[in-house]
């Protein structure tokens, strides 16, 4: 416990932990101190001098964003002198500010506007010619208007400290100073992760998102809090819409699990909801061609065909969902298959079988907030920077703020391995089981495992020691860890747990609802079922998946063997083009529902748009089909009532309701944790098969992981986001032409 001190601000007695910044203490107690450069969790900068206050026994006004509270401090924030100082600072800023609020995208939620209204003078006191500079496009996503910049350096600090990208700097000096990537004057553009965090923290309209340029005004759009649908971290975001159109995504002031963080996909990857390519009517194949039809016709057709096929053999109808579906849709799909069609062939297409992980879990999952507090982090595989950006951010936070020890085992030189890892074991591709075995087995066999993993035995020993030295251990498991290794990894914590050591897990699944759809009963058996297409399985209902794009020809061939393929999706995807019937579904913006993120937190998806009225949520299509087929599976008429069923049927979700979610935002589901004491020998024998599979001809992957290799990948959704498609196509072309990647 830190010591508390007593201070006096404007005559009010306040208590605060010693060493806390004065501005934070004031703001928490409702005492307004204007500021630009102060930002929570960033290093103090004292650049803007808006936060000046009078502190007794200090010779001059002091910047409250850099002063730490001391016992007995007496502070004045409202005297004539302080108010005059604020006016002066604002005058200096406005001296060279264009004041083109009418055409500035920040207008209406600009901190400078607010400060000037609250603390400024009515008329500017400087009449000098303003620096007239033009706006720059720093990247396809980010624009910069140097004239509006107040030089608070929040952007630079957030990029350096939080993102660890270091893409922005101060170019030139004095009155000519601008913010930008080095070499901007030579035409270099911003080569970074394009997370837009700098845009988010910019207090004024200097850094702007190109994608939402001029689309609306803050007061003219409706903002809906919802959950990102791109990765398994499940960031909360504010989806701005106007009429029936997407406007922008922002995170500002959101008290979600991600604070203000969003990655490129979260911030810029949702405009596909207003894409022209969205399906708006069902399609039915007539004379070999997909033609638009009405709902009734399409449903009748599918119901009749399914009924006929199912009557011969129930298992001839397969139902496959996708890890992108909401919990409600997945639950309806699974119930429809299980109780309605009574087929045993249903599940989802997934590469990693996480059921093996959850069935053997021996320690709880850590929330992102808990990851921030971890003391030792052991990462077995995984590249969160590219694939689970929020996880990467909180891991970086733990290292930066709390000095966590990061022990990394990976076959690739990921960014975290290069920059945050205290210990990095660069292993042979696929050698994760050997490392895990080395940590379990006795020291005698270290040499053998070391050879398998292509590291030195000494390194394995040091890793083992660091893990056994830890007090609060976080075990991060990447998607490379699969099959029996994943199972052992889940059971591994039982060996480490002790009274003096707390162990928690973090997994890095690939999709936003990988965990939730599993919980709802969609087993990851898609690839197995594929081999039965055309033989045992005659018809397939495929919701929200595009395996042809993802896995290519093998799926294309398999799907063509089916008698009936029904696809429910947003777009006419490569897979939908093969279908006999295509149903247009609602996007996440037109739905109510929930997602369960990687750490098992249930979060709401809120309906932001009405949609065209001709698309339907996945669960509603299922209901329509079941009704037409005369099947009873416990259909419900709303997402909320489906969720009530989920809460009563699935133990991990019991007690969770939309009401609670509205108040608590994110509720972590409770996972069954096995308490049996593990025998190292049992774990080792479980690993044997996997160790035997290690391919000794494979070498280390020495190439560092390229920035954007995961972030900038175009998938079914992101390729329908105009700004992304253009940006990444252009990038690819440059890379192809120059050969530099």
């Amino acid at each position: 416990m830190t010591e508390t001190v007593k201070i006096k601000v404007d005559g009010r007695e306040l208590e605060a932990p010693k060493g806390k910044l004065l501005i934070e203490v004031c703001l928490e107690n409702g005492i307004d101190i204007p500021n630009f450069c102060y930002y929570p969790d960033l290093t103090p900068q004292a650049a803007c001098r808006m936060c000046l206050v009078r502190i007794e026994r200090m010779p001059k006004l002091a910047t409250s964003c850099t002063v730490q509270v001391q016992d007995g401090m007496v502070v004045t924030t409202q005297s004539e002198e302080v108010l005059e100082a604020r006016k002066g600072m604002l005058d200096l800023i406005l001296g060279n500010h264009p004041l083109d609020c009418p055409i500035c995208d920040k207008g209406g939620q600009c901190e400078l506007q607010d400060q000037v209204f609250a603390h400024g003078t009515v008329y500017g006191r400087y009449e000098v010619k303003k620096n007239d500079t033009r706006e720059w496009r720093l990247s396809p996503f980010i624009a910069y208007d140097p004239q509006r910049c107040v030089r608070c350096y929040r952007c630079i600090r957030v990029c350096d400290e939080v993102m660890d990208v270091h893409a922005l700097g101060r170019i030139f000096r004095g009155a000519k100073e601008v913010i930008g990537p080095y070499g901007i004057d030579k035409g270099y553009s911003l080569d970074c992760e394009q997370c837009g965090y700098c845009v988010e923290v910019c207090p004024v309209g200097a850094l702007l998102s190109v994608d939402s340029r001029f689309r609306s005004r803050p007061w003219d759009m409706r903002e809906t809090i919802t959950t990102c649908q791109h990765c398994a971290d499940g960031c909360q975001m504010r989806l701005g819409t106007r009429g029936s159109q997407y406007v922008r995504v922002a995170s500002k002031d959101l008290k979600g699990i991600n604070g203000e963080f969003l990655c490129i996909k979260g911030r810029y990857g949702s405009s596909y909801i207003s894409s022209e390519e969205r399906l708006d009517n069902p399609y039915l194949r007539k004379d070999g061609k997909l033609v638009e039809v009405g709902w009734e016709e399409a449903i009748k057709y599918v119901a009749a065909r399914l009924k006929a096929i199912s009557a011969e053999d129930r298992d001839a109808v397969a139902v496959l969902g996708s890890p992108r579906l909401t919990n409600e849709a997945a639950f309806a799909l699974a119930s429809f298959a299980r109780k309605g069609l009574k087929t045993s062939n249903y599940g989802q297409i997934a590469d990693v079988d996480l059921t093996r992980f959850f069935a053997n879990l021996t320690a709880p999952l850590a929330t992102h907030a808990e990851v921030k507090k971890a003391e030792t982090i052991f990462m077995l595989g995984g590249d969160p920077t590219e694939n689970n950006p929020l996880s990467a951010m909180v891991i970086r936070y733990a290292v930066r703020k709390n000095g966590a020890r990061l022990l990394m085992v990976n076959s690739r030189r990921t960014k975290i391995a290069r920059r945050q890892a205290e210990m990095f074991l660069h292993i042979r591709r696929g050698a994760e089981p050997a490392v895990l075995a080395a940590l379990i087995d006795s020291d005698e066999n270290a040499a053998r495992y070391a050879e398998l993993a292509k590291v030195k035995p000494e390194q394995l020993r040091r890793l083992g020691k660091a893990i056994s030295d830890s007090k609060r251990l976080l075990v991060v498991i990447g998607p490379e860890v699969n099959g029996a290794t994943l199972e052992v990894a889940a059971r591994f914590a039982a060996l480490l747990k002790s009274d003096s050591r707390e162990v928690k897990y973090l997994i890095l699944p690939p999709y936003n609802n990988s965990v939730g759809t599993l919980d709802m009963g969609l087993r990851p058996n898609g690839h197995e079922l594929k081999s039965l297409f055309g033989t045992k399985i005659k018809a397939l209902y495929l919701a929200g998946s595009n395996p042809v794009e993802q896995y290519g020809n093998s799926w294309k061939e398999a799907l063509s063997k089916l008698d009936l393929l029904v696809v429910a999706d947003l777009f006419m995807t490569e897979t939908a083009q093969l279908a006999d019937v295509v149903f247009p579904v609602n996007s996440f913006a037109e739905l109510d529902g929930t997602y369960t993120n990687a750490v098992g937190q249930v979060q709401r998806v809120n309906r932001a748009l009405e949609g065209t009225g001709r698309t339907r949520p996945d669960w509603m299509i299922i209901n329509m089909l079941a009704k037409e087929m005369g099947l009873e599976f416990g259909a419900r008429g709303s997402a909320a009532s489906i969720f009530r069923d989920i809460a009563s049927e699935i133990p991990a979700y019991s007690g969770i309701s939309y009401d609670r979610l509205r108040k608590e935002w994110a509720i972590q589901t409770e996972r069954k944790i096995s308490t049996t004491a593990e025998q190292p020998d049992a774990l080792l024998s479980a690993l044997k098969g996997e160790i035997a599979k290690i391919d000794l001809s494979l070498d280390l992957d020495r190439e560092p992981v390229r920035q954007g290799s995961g972030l900038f990948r175009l998938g079914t959704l992101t390729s329908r986001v105009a700004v992304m498609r253009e940006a990444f196509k252009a990038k690819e072309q440059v890379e192809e032409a120059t050969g530099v990647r």
Partner: protein
Amino acid sequence: MSIISDVVETVKAITTGLKITFSYIPRQKLTNCYPDEPVEVFSAYRGEHYLNVDENGKERCVACFLCSAACPADAIYIEAAEDLRPYEERSSVEERYAKVYNIDYGKCILCGFCVEACPKDAIRHGHNFEMAVTNFSDLIKDKEYLLKNRERESRLPVVIIDEVKRRGLSK
């Protein structure tokens, strides 16, 4: 009461009435023979709006949405867009311009708040009051119409009177 006094009273009353009537005949008329004659309106009359242009004919509106924010009737709908061409080539003063600018006269109460709110002097009240239509949806006027309204001003069947002069308030 005699009949005579009745007659006298009646004639008196009629004379009083007719006196007023005849006294008004030579006076200035307050009504207009609209539409045969133009109507007089004050210069500050708040008629149908027009969208203003600058000295080179470029649209002044920058689609800042302030008029629509000020509008108590929610009558203005704007969509902004970007035109990165140089000033000479584009049709607007700034790079930001209104791609769509609609006023719904089914909602507008001609209060003038929008004119007041505009930072660019881009919207003004004209003097047209002939806004009746036979189809409700025709009450929504688009940008092209509102821009043309400026030229239409000179052809309106109205005589604009400067109330400052008329009341003898000018110095």
